[in-house]
């Protein structure tokens, strides 16, 4: 078994028009910036994939990553908890003119809906959002005298995440707080692709230290010199198509 993929462009080649795409990371921590930019490269060159529904905690920052996806026009809808960042212009502009849809989900509900999809749980009850406008139209049920809101699983066609170390079986280990949504998204997507700082042979990660077991990962691509999204934003970097039109 060898899940390694030779190139970024090959890693994202299956992602198709209209897909639901989960993108890992919280802020720049765990954000697979090279995979995202490879995907934009493909869209700029071929016009595909378009009409994507993107799931992430935020809705893009600055002029790179998800913000750049929105800028080039490949995102139809964002599902996120907090579409505000230090520079949220890309999303804000299109949202205010009605060019992009938003499904706003409380952060814990977002995480749990993603896990539920991965765990085969179509719905669950949570106290979060009860009595608020985000619970409108949702089933409410009382347990032990307290009201709870029913939330549905959130499945995806694809997930792209970043990890520090991966192996040929798809096992992943994350660095510091960059774990965040990434293990959950790998569980919830039909096809999950990880960019890893170091790609090892199966057996080189201690089985007790694996954060995402390989069963949840379909492909692993090594990006040894990966950039950190937050650092790029602070340096004022912008997405630039690599050679493509």
């Amino acid at each position, binding site marked *: *078994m060898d899940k390694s993929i030779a190139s970024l462009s090959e890693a994202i080649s299956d992602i198709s028009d209209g897909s639901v795409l989960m993108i890992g990371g919280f802020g720049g921590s765990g954000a697979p910036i090279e995979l995202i930019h490879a995907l934009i490269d493909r869209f700029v060159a071929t016009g595909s994939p378009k009409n994507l529904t993107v799931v992430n905690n935020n809705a893009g920052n600055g002029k790179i990553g998800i913000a750049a996806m929105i800028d080039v026009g490949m995102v139809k809808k964002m599902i996120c908890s907090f579409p505000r960042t230090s520079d949220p212009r890309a999303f804000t502009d299109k949202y205010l003119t009605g060019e992009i849809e938003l499904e706003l989900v409380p952060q814990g509900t977002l995480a749990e809906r993603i*896990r539920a*999809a*991965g*765990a*085969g*749980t179509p719905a669950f009850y949570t106290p979060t959002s009860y009595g608020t406008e985000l619970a409108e139209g949702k089933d409410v049920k009382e347990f032990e005298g307290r009201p709870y809101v029913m939330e549905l699983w959130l499945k995806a066609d694809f997930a792209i995440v970043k990890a520090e170390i991966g*192996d*040929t*079986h798809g*096992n992943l280990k994350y660095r510091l707080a960059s774990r965040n949504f990434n293990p959950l998204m790998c*569980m919830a997507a039909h096809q999950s692709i990880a960019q890893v700082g170091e790609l090892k*042979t*199966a*057996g080189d990660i201690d*089985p*007790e230290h*694996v954060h995402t*077991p*390989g*069963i*949840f990962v379909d492909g692993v691509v090594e990006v040894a010199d990966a950039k950190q999204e937050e650092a790029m934003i602070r340096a004022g970097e912008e997405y630039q198509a690599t050679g493509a039109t």
Partner: protein
Amino acid sequence: MSIEKLSNAQIAWRAAQDIEDGAYVNLGIGFPEMVAKYQPEGREAIFHTENGVLGFGDAPAEGQEDWDLINAGKKPITLKPGAAFFHHADSFAMVRGGHLDVAILGAFQVAQNGDLANWRLGSKGVPAVGGAMDLVHGAKRVAVITEHVTKDGKPKLVEKCTFPLTGVGCITRVYTSLAVVDIEDGRFILREKLKSISMDDLQKHTGAPLHIDKECGDLVVPENGL
């Protein structure tokens, strides 16, 4: 009445041939565990066990057991390169989330609509279910390996299960001591049968109609003594 039939090893061998390279597989406790022995050369399957291990290998040599490293049957195991540990909820997320490619289970009865009864024979004694009711919903393909009939000759492939159900409409293929049978649209579709048994005899040992889709192949396995 005595008929030629496959040994358990031969049934397990046949089931193993359908496991693809790179498949994630859960083998039920007991007889299904034999399937691991017959992986075809050149194919690598990754075995999952409910208590939180992915990528385990053979049993350790006697005296080498580490009782913190066991499978769902509480038997000692070893690890293969690329193994991972996780807790029980993650383990059953793998199962119930449909991340396994194949689960192979034993059966008391399988019905033509895919219902499975394999956890309990009646209301006597101490009931125990383990992970059986999870596994039937847990894989892209849920197969059964079993004798074709019970020890006293009653069909195990039936119109409707009479024993308590493990799951509804969950089984897609049955490997028996006489045949390979798929379940499609509420019917048994005979895919392979032993050459030595006639269609009529096989039907007599089966509790519901066997249908043939285009053709029925020969069930061919290596000589006994596997």
